[in-house]
């Protein structure tokens, strides 16, 4: 079928070891990725209140109609969902996502996604080569790190080291051939032992990091999934897809290679520079190494092999500490930190927040040899590779403080009797649901609120580049902003279809962050990301592209691009607004699942420090509308007001059509979205929102 879909979803019951199929057409109305994942989870996970390690947990690993095509940022995203292990006080139904080339190979193998049910009695890995799907013995792989496991699996699939030549995968002349290595997704060594911290890793470092999905895999006795496809994907309009690709080229580095927009001009989604060479020691050469079909190519591969496929927080969790220890210079320790986290399958986000917490505990005389929290970790080697190995080794081996860290930071702090005080002071920056502070709720309101109203740190950057990073970079550098606050607000307001009559959508002033406009912004963002980012799977680091230095008067390609590529691939003419409505439907389905899991308004609160401790040291500069004018203003020292946040929540629930007392969706809202069965299920448990 020439619409981007393969037409079938692989269904694997690990308990009975049966391989089956689900017809994609049954779920196509949900788009792909997250939408299909949530809908399948709703159907197949009867009791949504179970724990993430329960064999009845349903894991979905979904591509989208764009997987395998050359839609920039759309060719290779894969969405992972299920009940997670990371959040507190309970593991919410959650999501993670990774790039690389997994969903590309999955599509070429003839599958739109994978559903994993049950628990195997033996340690296994799932081997997919086109239509041939088998469960293999993983006992020899179980204790291996992610890189070693992948190399062994490759050799299994291709029969020893590949020669780089065409390999026939079927033995027949016209059966598929490939020069490619299988794409593997794997958890780390004995990941059941550090489940809440355990990630899934693909290739060198494309990671489904958050949620504890590495632990969920391990709880099912599943080590890895490997896929190699020799087929392809048909698209509705090849010429339109080529035209769209070449059109978008001029909004990214490839269209301006001889005169690129300088890095110093700001951070942008589509238009930013490729690679991550800044994380490597000076003089180490590298290439940008991107996901399949990408137009920007964010990660890196170096001449030392260290840092391969890593980017951003993979490096950042240790970089500041490395630089402090090495007179402001980045040593090889930073890339080593990325490598070890990837190899051991440890989620780097908790590490980002763990380091300053440990530092404060050591400085405070609480943690160390013979101290209240006894530890023989080499704190004197802080900032070096030695410390990385010791710290991460303690987590995967449950030694020293690792035996407590492996429970997840929330549970660890609770065990140490420090949870309340450290969340109150903020030295342990678990901002909401036990998730690490990624961007500060006191500053970047849409990020904090979106995370609080959902299940996790949102990790969605559409507003972050332009409302957080760019104003900060421009004002700190003392340069004239490339885009004024007024122009920024104008562009964004124009592009946030269907909210085009609301001018103050990015007002981050002290008043603006509690406003109805901010409630609309957060709702828009939830709907956009549920559909375009996580279901159709346009990479979050490319889209939404509001502001683009290569665009006319700095206007980016949202909301034109998203429907354009989708139409070329699927043949379906769907407006941006229609897509947003699908996003709203998916968001409401997720909300209903959380309500069934026990979500109520009264537990939707940030950690105490968000309300009680001023945000510092900054710099924190955001667009504000004050005294009748737009400007970029420093909001260092801000903290959130509890009552005003509660008031904002009421506004948000109203915008979403939810019960303002409980935060649960109402029957009217759900039925308007075609979710009558969901309303019925909520009503049966007494949790349906009142009108």
């Amino acid at each position, binding site marked *: 079928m020439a619409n981007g879909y393969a037409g079938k979803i692989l269904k694997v019951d690990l308990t009975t070891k049966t391989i089956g199929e689900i017809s994609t057409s049954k779920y196509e109305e949900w788009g792909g990725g997250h939408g299909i994942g949530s809908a399948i989870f709703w159907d197949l996970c009867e009791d949504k209140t179970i724990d993430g390690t329960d064999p009845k947990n349903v894991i979905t690993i979904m591509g989208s109609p764009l997987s395998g095509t050359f839609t920039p940022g759309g060719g290779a995203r894969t969405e992972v969902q299920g009940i997670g292990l990371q959040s507190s006080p309970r593991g919410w139904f959650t999501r993670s996502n990774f790039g690389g080339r997994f969903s590309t190979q999955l599509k070429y193998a003839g599958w739109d996604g994978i559903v994993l049910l049950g628990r195997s009695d033996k340690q296994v890995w799932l081997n997919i080569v086109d239509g041939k799907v088998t469960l293999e013995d993983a006992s020899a792989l179980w204790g291996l790190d992610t890189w070693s496991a992948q190399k062994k699996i490759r050799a299994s699939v291709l029969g020893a080291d590949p020669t780089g030549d065409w390999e026939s995968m079927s033995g027949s002349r016209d059966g598929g051939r490939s020069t490619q290595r299988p794409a593997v997704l794997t958890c780390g060594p004995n990941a059941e032992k550090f489940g809440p911290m355990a990630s899934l890793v693909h290739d060198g470092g494309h990671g489904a990091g958050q949620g504890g999905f590495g632990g969920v895999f391990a709880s099912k006795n599943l080590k890895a999934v490997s896929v190699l496809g020799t087929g392809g994907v048909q698209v509705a309009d090849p010429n339109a897809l080529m035209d769209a690709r070449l059109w978008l080229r001029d909004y990214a580095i490839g269209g301006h290679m001889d005169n690129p927009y300088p890095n110093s001009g700001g951070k942008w989604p589509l238009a930013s520079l490729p690679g991550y060479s800044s994380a490597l020691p000076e003089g180490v050469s*590298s*290439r940008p190494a*991107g996901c399949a079909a990408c137009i920007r190519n964010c990660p890196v591969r170096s001449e030392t092999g260290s840092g391969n496929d890593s980017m951003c927080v993979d490096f950042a969790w240790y970089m500041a500490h490395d630089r402090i220890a090495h007179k402001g210079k980045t040593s090889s320790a930073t890339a080593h930190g990325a490598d070890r986290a990837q190899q051991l399958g440890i989620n780097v986000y908790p590490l980002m927040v763990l380091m300053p917490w440990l530092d404060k505990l050591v400085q405070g005389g609480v943690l160390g040899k013979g101290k209240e929290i006894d530890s023989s970790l080499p704190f004197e080697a802080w900032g070096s590779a030695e410390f990385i190995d010791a710290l991460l080794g303690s987590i995967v081996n449950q030694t020293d403080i690792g035996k407590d860290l492996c429970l997840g930071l929330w549970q660890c702090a609770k065990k140490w009797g420090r949870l309340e005080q450290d969340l109150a002071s903020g030295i342990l920056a678990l901002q909401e649901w036990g998730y690490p502070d990624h961007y500060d709720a006191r500053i970047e309101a849409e990020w904090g609120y979106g995370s609080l109203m959902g299940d996790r740190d949102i990790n969605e950057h559409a507003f972050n580049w332009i409302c957080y990073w760019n104003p900060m970079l421009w004002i700190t550098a003392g340069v004239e902003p490339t885009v004024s606050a007024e122009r920024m607000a104008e562009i964004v307001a124009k592009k946030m279809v269907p909210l085009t009559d609301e001018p103050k959508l990015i007002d981050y002033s002290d008043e603006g962050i509690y406003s109805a406009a901010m409630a609309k912004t957060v709702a828009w963002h939830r709907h956009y990301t549920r559909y375009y980012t996580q279901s159709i799977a346009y990479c979050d680091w490319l889209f939404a592209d509001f502001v683009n230095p290569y665009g006319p008067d700095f206007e980016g390609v949202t909301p034109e691009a998203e429907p354009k590529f989708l139409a070329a691939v699927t043949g379906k003419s769907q407006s941006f607004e229609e897509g947003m409505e699908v996003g709203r439907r998916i968001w409401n389905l997720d909300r209903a699942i959380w309500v069934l899991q026990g979500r109520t308004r009264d537990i939707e609160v940030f950690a105490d420090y968000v309300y009680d401790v001023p945000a510092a040291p900054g710099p924190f500069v955001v667009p504000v509308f004050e005294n009748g004018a737009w400007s970029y203003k420093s909001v260092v020292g801000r903290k959130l007001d509890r009552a005003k946040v509660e008031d904002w929540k009421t506004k948000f629930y109203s915008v979403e059509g939810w019960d303002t007392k409980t935060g649960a969706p109402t029957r009217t809202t759900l039925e308007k979205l075609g979710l009558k069965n969901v309303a019925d299920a909520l009503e049966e448990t007494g949790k349906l929102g009142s009108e």
Partner: protein
Amino acid sequence: MADNDIKKAEGTQLSRRQFITGVGGVGVGALLGGVLTQGFLAPDKVFAVPASQGYLLVDTKKCAGCTTCMMVCSLTHHGQVSYALSRIQITQDSFRSFPDDLSMNQCRQCPYPACADACPTGANHVDAANGNVRTIDAAKCIGCERCINACPFTPSRVEWNGVEKTAQKCDLCADTPFWNTDGGPGGKQACVEACPMKALSFTSSVPVQSEKGYDVDLGHTSTAWSDFGFTGVRGKGR
């Protein structure tokens, strides 16, 4: 994994390329501008063909391994996106060090096209109507795969299309029924147009035959590439 893994010429101690070039040395027989090449002596026949008027150049240090080239190649030629149907192959290994982590395997439009010489039916031939591009007429292909085996490079630059049951190879986009743009040596190539890192380019001059396989510095006129911190790339101003 570099593009100099070449097969041994049957029955000799020499590599196939050494056998071929040994007759006239590196670069001999590769004349500019469509003039007949010097014939290469093979055991029983002389195979004399004009040089191609088009070649793909690659910068393997700029390539980001995104495989967009593979995807657009297959789509423009076959109407579906498939690595297996792509006439350019990027192979890579995340666990190797730059620059050995990746190989760009494009057809070199060889001055002596062993693939065309090997074809018993003339399916694999030099297309005078399209700038002497070495290409395959699927209607004449009998599926013997001699051309696939004859290619001196790994992976073979001629591949087997199990869907349409024919050998196929890079034709510099001379025949792209699913792309509304003129290709061939006189036109545009989908991979060159679509590459987001500008790691592919087209030339009409026969490149120097070397171990590096048309691997050139496409660093462009600006110093941008080194400004990005990719210090491994040679080039102007670096």
